[in-house]
């Protein structure tokens, strides 16, 4: 090795436009093979899980192995229904954005199981610190669709008074924190919230979601450090959808084996989970929630999934990844997989599924009509103009009062 020599290294993604994607190199462990430790086990017992894959639904859509959460058909159908709604809602909102009804939109297509199963496996009073791609969480928590739409079209009924870009929801009543455009900030915030719950002797916990790319931010590492130090009752989710706008996950991952593996170095229990498997996400979240509630501290969960559509309405993914990459994704489509599982159990069928899609489409269409009756960004009515001076402080000082006069309102 005498001619060994350091060379400047920049990773490249496995496939770029024009390549035929082949994901066989991923070598994903089979569903049902992962062992399920006790929820209060040492983080060391999660070492294999952090580099493996917790999966429940096998290739025949049967639930297998230790992690099967054994959910009732009612719960499964509820999850399916939230996921179908999320997908239809996203489709519709994208179309409306294209028609100029809102300034911007971000879909969660292909990742619906992440937020829906995660939310359903927690208590509705547990605090959620999502990113901009967990709209399914709001549906699972029962957020009114008209209210969600009114926010996205920034109209007079927008509960955020038109101050935020679309999809940056906030819903205190539903225990959903205000979503930031600044990546990663919510991760340590969730740790702090969880510490406060422990401080107050409550059995509530907190959970947060960030993307694969965002793990490169200091806030990811700060959150894990503090969560470990204070044994915070928190679930820290990394949604690895393979892409951060145009950057492949390997730009943030480096030579680490998985994002979950990064948690081990902090002494935090860490799981990598099939992010398109409703049952596996549910089970892993349940495990982490129990661990948190019983004093075992934090869990880092990497949800291995795929961003099936564009990053947002501002980019064209065919410029940086092969078209149809999602069709080759080895973990399939989360909605299709849960649907087939229910059908296999005799608890669902194609006709009911079609009916569900129709019902949800009708709901979304009807809700949008109602939302639009409260105005749209371009045609108004919006929140009153003077409201831009509200909420900067509890009470506006002389500067804001004077500036409001200067604006002539």
């Amino acid at each position, binding site marked *: 090795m005498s001619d060994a020599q350091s060379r400047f290294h920049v990773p490249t993604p496995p496939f770029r436009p024009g390549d035929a994607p082949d994901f066989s190199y991923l070598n994903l462990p089979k569903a049902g093979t992962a062992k399920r430790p006790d929820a209060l086990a040492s983080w060391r017992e999660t070492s294999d899980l952090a580099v493996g894959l917790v999966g429940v639904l096998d290739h025949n859509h049967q639930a297998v192995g230790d992690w099967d959460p054994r959910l009732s058909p009612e719960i499964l159908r509820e999850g399916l229904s939230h996921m179908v709604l999320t997908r239809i809602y996203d489709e519709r909102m994208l179309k409306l954005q294209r028609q100029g009804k809102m300034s911007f939109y971000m879909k969660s297509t292909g990742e619906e199981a992440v937020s829906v199963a995660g939310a359903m496996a927690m208590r509705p009073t547990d605090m959620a610190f999502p990113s901009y791609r967990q709209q399914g969480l709001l549906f699972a928590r029962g957020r009114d669709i008209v209210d969600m739409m009114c926010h996205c079209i920034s109209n007079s009924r927008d509960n955020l008074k038109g*101050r935020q870009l679309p999809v940056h929801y906030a819903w205190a009543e539903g225990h959903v924190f205000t979503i930031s455009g600044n990546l990663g900030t919510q991760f340590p915030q969730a740790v702090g919230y969880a510490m406060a719950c422990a401080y107050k002797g409550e059995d509530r916990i907190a959970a947060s979601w960030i993307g694969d790319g965002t793990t490169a*931010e200091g806030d990811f590492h700060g959150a894990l450090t503090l969560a470990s130090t204070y044994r915070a009752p928190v679930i820290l989710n990394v949604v690895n959808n393979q892409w951060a706008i*145009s950057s492949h996950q390997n730009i943030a991952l480096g030579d680490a084996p998985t994002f979950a593996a990064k948690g081990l170095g902090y002494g935090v229990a860490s799981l990598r989970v099939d992010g398109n498997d409703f049952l596996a996400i549910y089970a892993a979240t349940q495990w982490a929630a129990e661990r948190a509630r019983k004093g075992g501290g934090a869990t880092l969960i990497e949800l291995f999934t795929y961003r099936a559509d564009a990053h947002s309405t501002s980019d064209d993914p065919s410029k940086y990844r092969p078209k149809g990459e999602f069709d080759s994704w080895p973990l399939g489509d989360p909605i299709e997989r849960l649907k087939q599982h229910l059908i296999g159990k005799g608890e669902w069928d194609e006709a009911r599924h079609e009916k569900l899609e129709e019902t949800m489409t009708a709901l979304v269409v009807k809700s949008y009509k109602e939302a639009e009756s409260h105005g749209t960004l371009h045609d108004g009515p919006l929140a009153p103009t003077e409201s831009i001076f509200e909420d900067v402080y509890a009470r506006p000082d002389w500067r804001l009062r004077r500036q409001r006069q200067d*604006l002539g309102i």
Partner: protein
Amino acid sequence: MPAMNIIQALNSAMDVLLDADPDVVIFGEDAGYFGGVFKATDGLQAKYGLDRVFDAPINEAAIAAIAAMAVGMAARGLKPIAEIQFADYIFPAIDQIVSEMSRIRYRSAGQFTSGCVVRSPWGGGIRGGQTHSMSPEAFFTHVPGLQVVVPSNPYDAKGLLIASIESGDPVIFFEPKRIYNGPFDGVPDKPLSSWARHPKGEVPEERYTVELGKAEIVRPGEACTVIAYGTLVHVAEAAAEHAGIDAEIIDLKTLVPYDIETIAASVNKTGRVVVAQEAPRTSGFAAELAAQIQEECFYALEAPVFRLTGWDTPYPHAHEWAYFPTRDRFIRALKTVTEA
């Protein structure tokens, strides 16, 4: 000379720099293969290779990533140009920029330097909401050791960027994204005009510089002086034109070091001043200009210096145009100082 928009002019500047000097490297989130979310680095990776133009992890802060990586690289003799995807996302890097990048030369008594450029799309007017609209220049003008540049047109964008990397000291280079594709006269929702029809839209292909620290009088006049930078230069011109006020408009271009000679000469002539910024009012850069003018030109002033600014609120999304210093607000400002 080819017509270019600001993005093309920046791309051309980086092309020239990469071509001339193997020590120039360019990186940022999505800046490599994709060419940046605004396409400023489009085609450069394909032309110069993966090790000259590359994607960075989403970490504006740490040594391993953008701003700080620029410090480490500059210490080893490279000339890095780092892109922060939006100026609103520069804050994770503030420690590296403020405590490190700005002071490397000073604290090592000149043994080490940190010459680099941090480029970042800046300013509002694109319905970007509070995290894609900010104008955080004042945070950086307050830091000794940093130079701060804001071009207002394609010609200057290219010349200032080349001058910045050649200056040998760190430069925070803010790009008014509202006018990337054409000048904006501050009338919301009017169709965009093109740089092709603007004299500063003509950009030489080759290397040239526009001197740092030099302002330019873009409209000579007698009635009052307007000092602006970035997008608001064009709004000021439109306002003077529309209201028929003979304002002398100064495009500042470099905020640190700012061109006090050009400013003082104009103010001593007109005695009336509007200083404009899109950022919130309190402790903004306009306050620095107003204070300096007051010290230098007090006896020439015929009216109080007028600060035209954004409000002391976060940048609103739906009510963007109630926040932005539009042409109408500019006209009111011009009338206030000229009628006082």
